[in-house]
């Protein structure tokens, strides 16, 4: 029986990008469905009734939600020569990868949202500080390795690189230069874009994200 794989996503979502990269890394064929988050489809509401959010992966009719749970599901389900492992095989390295992915969700995402949604002023400055701090901590974790996963691109790389296309928007909205603060991260981001087809294919264009960010700020009335 052929596998039926559907991804419900919204093009701007870094969480969705994670899943796209994972599916591509594993050479999984899937149907992509773009959701309008202002007008959610019955399918989305049926498949993720609790959070009503994307991404949702639907595998043979069964929905999986939460991007990191989805990526691990993909890693555990598709395992063959065409499908290199995403998570490290060593339990200690695995724990490290999971910890940092969770850190990214908690610190990077929340500060990105903070910058995006706050008017210029104290709140936005606070979010900017948090964002820079999180990036610095992650750069320290990367060290001199080519990828967070070591020699090979892995789970933590894909969890974080999804935010790379948001860097331009963050820099422009709050006037700072990520390359000046975290040169290794920028090098790493460029490396992922150049060397990994899955990343280049799955990340939305930085300028399109910036347009989206400006529109969102207008809608929220913070600009």
């Amino acid at each position, binding site marked *: 029986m052929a596998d039926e794989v559907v991804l419900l996503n919204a093009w701007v979502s870094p969480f969705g990008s994670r899943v796209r990269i994972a599916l591509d890394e594993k050479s999984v064929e899937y149907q992509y469905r773009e959701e309008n988050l202002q007008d959610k489809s019955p399918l989305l509401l049926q498949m993720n009734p609790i959070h009503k959010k994307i991404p949702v992966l639907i595998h043979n009719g069964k929905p999986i939600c939460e991007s990191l749970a989805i990526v691990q599901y993909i890693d555990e389900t598709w395992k063959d020569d065409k499908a290199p492992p995403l998570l490290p095989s060593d339990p200690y390295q*695995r724990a490290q990868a999971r910890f940092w992915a969770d850190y990214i969700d908690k610190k990077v995402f929340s500060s990105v949202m903070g910058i995006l949604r706050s008017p210029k002023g104290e709140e936005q400055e606070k979010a900017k500080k948090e964002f820079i701090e999180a990036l610095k901590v992650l750069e320290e974790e990367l060290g001199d390795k080519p990828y967070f996963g070591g020699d090979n691109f892995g789970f933590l790389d894909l969890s974080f690189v999804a935010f790379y296309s948001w860097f331009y928007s963050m820099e422009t909205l709050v006037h700072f230069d990520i390359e000046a603060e975290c040169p290794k991260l920028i090098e790493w981001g460029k490396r992922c874009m150049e060397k990994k087809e899955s990343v280049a294919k799955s990340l939305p264009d930085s300028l399109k994200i910036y347009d989206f960010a400006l529109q969102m700020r207008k809608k929220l009335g913070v600009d």
Partner: protein
Amino acid sequence: MAEEVKVMGMWISPFSRRVELALKLKGVSYEYIEEDLANKSPLLLKYNPIHKKIPVLLHNEKIFIESTVILEYIDETWEGYSLLPEDPYQRAMARFWVKFIDEKCGTAVWIACWSEGKDQEKAMEEAWEHLRTLENELKGKKFFGGETIGLVDIAANLIALWFGIFEEVAGIKLLDEEKLPILCRWIEQFLSCDLVKESLPPRDELLMFFQARKEAITASKSMVYKI
């Protein structure tokens, strides 16, 4: 080679208690180191310099932090009792519910307990909604893990003991048997397990700890260790 397993925790923390329960279920002996988060020790700052939090698991000189990450490590490292199912879909579900418990239930109940007036009413409604959603997951099962305690049950220790304490201190009732019969039944089942009992702090002492900090927590809306 003898294994070195140490857990740094705080007696009042549901998060370090999760790690202890998981190790007990696996039959792993460990040394427990009590940490006072009001007065962080040099040892904690050495093992977890960036985040300065507990629990910390030390296994043969490797350091692990974040309770849910530690639980998965424990499951992968020691054989015997399984905390997670084998099936990838069931595993994805378990991970989903663990996150739901901490991020949705935990946050909503915390806000509900330490706010007042209209804010409290609104937060209580939200808490009930989340707890009802969680309760649905238990239908037809003894535990979230099925016949035996699993990862989700361990994470739900927060609900089993701490939520009851918080609501008592706050003077509200969230875990109502009429509103949440299945969840309340699960709490009873969970708390009656020997290893669970061994892994929990005495209820009256935990109650006193939070009662003494009620004012400070209500004022700051965040956890207060120093009084």
